[in-house]
């Protein structure tokens, strides 16, 4: 009886010591990785020797391996509409979407140049989901960027969505793609993505 009880306790402790610190380390790792990435980005932006295109390339490289772009592309279309895509269209769409994501990521990174940035704690909302918030301290108000991670099959944490000031990037793309596909064909959507009608930014 007592031995059985003791065994249970031992198992309990073993589980606690093995599993909990691992999970905690995971979270801390995500946080420190993000912190070093943010630091790198800020350093890149402040480097006077780099041209803007070189900065962009460096920043885009930093983001590689953090995002699951392919999953983001698929989620932005949604399961039902994804069926309308042929194999080659799927590949083409993912490529176009990745280019778009990287561009928008590097452009947004430039907004950080003169701001103070802090990385908050990683919060585990589910066993396979972690949210990590990055705060940009502006002059009047702060903007928070929430990175949403999921754990892939190989146990790696990857970002599948980003919320900027509580607006989910994926949701806005999802709404747009759903609207376009409700009246247009996949071919037409791909055409629009290939020829973006960028609105003029006046300065």
């Amino acid at each position, binding site marked *: 009886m007592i031995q059985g009880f003791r065994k249970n306790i031992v198992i309990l402790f073993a589980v606690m010591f093995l599993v909990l610190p691992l999970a905690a380390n995971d979270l801390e790792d995500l946080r420190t990785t993000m912190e070093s990435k943010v630091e790198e980005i800020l350093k890149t932006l402040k480097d006077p020797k780099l041209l803007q295109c070189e900065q962009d390339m460096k920043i885009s490289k930093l983001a590689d391996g953090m995002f*699951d772009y392919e*999953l983001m592309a*698929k*989620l932005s279309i*949604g*399961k*039902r*509409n*994804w*069926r309308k895509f042929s*194999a080659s269209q*799927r590949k083409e769409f993912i490529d176009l979407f990745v280019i*778009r994501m990287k*561009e*928008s990521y590097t452009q947004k990174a430039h907004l950080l140049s003169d701001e103070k940035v802090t990385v908050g704690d990683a919060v585990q909302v589910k066993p396979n989901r972690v949210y990590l918030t990055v705060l940009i301290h502006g002059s*009047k108000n702060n903007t928070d960027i929430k990175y949403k991670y*999921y754990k*892939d*099959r190989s146990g790696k944490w990857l970002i*599948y*969505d980003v919320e900027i000031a*509580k*607006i*989910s990037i*994926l*949701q*806005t793309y*999802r*709404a*747009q*793609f*759903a*609207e*376009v596909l*409700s009246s247009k064909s996949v071919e037409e*959507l791909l055409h*629009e*993505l290939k020829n*973006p009608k*960028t*609105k003029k*930014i*006046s300065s």
Partner: protein
Amino acid sequence: MNRQKALMRLIFSLFIMLLFTNSLLLASSNSSAMNSAIEAELDAGFEDSFDDEIADEFSDEFANEQQKEFDPLSGYNRMMTNFNDGLYRHVVFPLGRGYRKITPKQFRESVGNFFLNLEYPVRLVNNLLQLKFQNSLEETERFVVNSTIGLAGLFDPASSWLGIKEHDEDFGQTLGHYGVGGGFYLVLPFFGPSNLRDTLSLVVDWQVDPFFYQEGRSYNLLPINFWQSIGLKSFQYFNQYSDNIEAYENLTKDAIDIYPLLKSVYEQNRQKEIEE
């Protein structure tokens, strides 16, 4: 006076209708429902099986997600979205840039603070209606501090010195708090995205908003008629827009279609505001 009563009765009956049609309308227009659709797809582990033909058993689960949203005014809304976009880009933003050149930032902030401070009754009533007593108290503290030390609301020492933050609540959020759905999407001229619930709620908030002229009310501030009220509100918005030109431009720059984009942003924003 009779006309006002009739108007209120109309609004009341529309709210009742809204309550009944709520569940129907909410089905697909809710952003948190959309979020959970994404979550569900992730949970189903479909990232691996996405390319395969998806098993029929999943089709029920995701059937809702891409049903056509209930958007009966989509024709009008789309037109008004484009009209507003053109108005902002070609009229409001150039004017806003000019305004920004001739006014210091502190002036524009003070204009914003002044309006915000006097809209205190709207926030108080709606915080109380949602039984948020702590927030109601803080709003009152803010009003007292900012109206006095803050020189009639031109400055915001309550948040900059005392760290008492604003608790923005309107009647649309109050209804949302009690589970009333947004109803269909509705784009207002100049003021932009809204929905049935939030637009009707404006009329309720006007009852306590000092910037809205009410016949027979003793505390009408500046406006002496409805159109002056609209003018004042437009100036308030213009003042606010002028410092958010770049934000709007950045948001819409890479849009594939600004109509669903702005709609999604509005719905997500309201959802978050209601949850707060």
